[in-house]
């Protein structure tokens, strides 16, 4: 199951602040795309618009051929778009397994749902904590739990907001491997991330956002040497080495 997620001319302002300005980007089906840009450039706002948490002032969001502009979050999830949050958001007073059972399920019995949940926990490597309260997990384990439960309903597209933020290098590597494996099975990813090694090694395509506008988009090597990107994101005078 896979699909292309696309925005067309999204604009969004908060009071006098123009967070997104005519923003168009495409996360092609079956690819891992990155969305990078300086803090405050509108990456998370774009995620919020795509997943129904914010309403755009203008512009459209498409999943495959279908228009999903303005659909509320439960509907967006049901259509096959899962997302994680920048600061991980789990259900601290539910057990890890209960967290996995929250996502809506169709066509699976309670037992199948449970087995599927345990398979996913084994896949991300936290099955040993299934019975623990999610609030007792470490930050890195919470990141894995969030990744796990977003996958429960087999979404075609997964949006990850800083999956490598604030976790140790071993775990970053572990998360990158998991994403790579899921992508091989056909899943589309759109990832907001500041860790450039992570982005450059994992992603097929990079889109750069600055002040709510797309300034560059293309394969990682090309984007990395784009002068507008160096100026906006990596800072003038940076020689762009890895």
């Amino acid at each position: 199951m896979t699909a292309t997620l696309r925005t067309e001319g999204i604009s969004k302002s908060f009071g006098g602040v123009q967070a997104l300005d005519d923003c168009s980007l495409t996360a092609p089906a079956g690819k891992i795309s990155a969305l990078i840009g300086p803090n405050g450039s509108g990456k998370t706002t774009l995620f919020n618009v795509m997943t129904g948490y914010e309403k755009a002032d203008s512009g459209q969001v498409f999943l495959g051929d279908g228009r999903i502009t303005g659909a509320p979050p439960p509907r967006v999830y049901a259509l096959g778009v899962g997302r994680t949050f920048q600061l991980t958001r789990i259900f601290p007073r539910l057990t890890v397994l209960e967290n996995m059972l929250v996502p809506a399920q169709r066509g699976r019995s309670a037992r199948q749902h449970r087995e599927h949940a345990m398979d996913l926990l084994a896949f991300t490597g936290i099955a040993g904590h299934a019975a623990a309260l999610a609030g007792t997990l470490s930050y890195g384990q919470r990141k894995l739990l969030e990744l796990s439960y977003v996958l429960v309903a087999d979404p075609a597209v997964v949006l990850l907001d800083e999956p490598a933020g604030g976790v140790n290098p071993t775990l970053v590597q572990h998360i990158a491997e998991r994403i790579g494996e899921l992508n091989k099975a056909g899943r589309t990813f759109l990832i907001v991330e500041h860790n450039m090694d992570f982005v450059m090694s994992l992603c097929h395509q990079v889109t750069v956002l600055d002040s709510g506008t797309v300034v560059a988009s293309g394969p990682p090597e090309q984007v990395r040497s784009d002068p507008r990107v160096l100026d906006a994101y990596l800072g003038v005078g940076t020689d762009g080495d890895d």
Partner: protein
Amino acid sequence: MTKQTVAQGSGLLLLLAVAAVFPLVFTNPTATNFAVVTLVFVAVASAWNIFSGFSGYLSLGHAVFYGTGAYFLTVAANDWKLSAGAIFWLVPLAGLAAAVIAVPLGLVALRVRRHTFVVITIAFFFIAQLSASNLSVTGGSSGMLVPQPNWAGATFNNPFYYVALVIAVATIVLAWLVRRSRFGLQLRAIRDDEDRAAGLGVRAMPVKLAALVLSAFITGMAGAVWVYFTGEAVPQFVFDPLFDLAIVLMAFFGGLGTVAGPVLGALVLQPAQLWLNLEETNSYSSEILFGALFLVVILFLPRGVLPTGAEYLSKAQAWIRRRRAAPGETAREPAAGADDAITPTSAPGGAA
């Protein structure tokens, strides 16, 4: 079946048996009077917990549903001129009336969260109380009498006792079923992080509203039994702000969001209050005491007696196990907090 399930099951059966024979053993009308009111509060505290305890939306307006049920029974019993036994058949209808009222209230109040939600439920409470004092259908501020049965004094309380017992037991069973169900899981997910739950496909509004309506239905039935038992519906007692504080205290005292907590809270606190009112000439002393208890619970037992007690118990058990462990053999601690405790396996079937 595990040994624990058997022990719990037989314990519950024993409790139920004690409850069933209680009015036959304690025939003193004061005792059965206390028991009827206590059972009404067991039902109400559990019903409040099904909505507020599971969803985290703290309602201080449940007296609206209690009062709706109470006035429905009072007005209907008078208008339809029902016989004594038949009035009990109004109880489920009174619950329905409260459930119907809960729909528009929920659709308005459940749009906001936390403190704003609490304030709105309080506003609803005062609207209801003022309406009852000023409308002719409710008899205005002087209230209305409920036609009373002419049963013998010694066993007068018994029918009320058994009706209240059935409602209380049914509510506890319902709370247990909700706690275990997918519906209950969605409620608890909403309590922890409503926006996150929405992003995982949980339609929060229908789930919250269903819980509120269910809770209102039971609360309305309890209010109807209570008003029939006391014999009169007067606005300031039917819509009583202390009612809301009492059930909230019961749930917090026993353990918010647990099935047994609110039951324990009602079983301990309601008889205590009735007894204090009886013993003390100053009827406010119980209210002052309850206010102080509320502070103690919120400050020292914010999760309630049962969860905190269970925590101490498991700590004690762990300590005993460590003591018993042979020297040199260190007790195994769960590796919480260790990012390294990750053991990946191959991709699950669904992802391949």
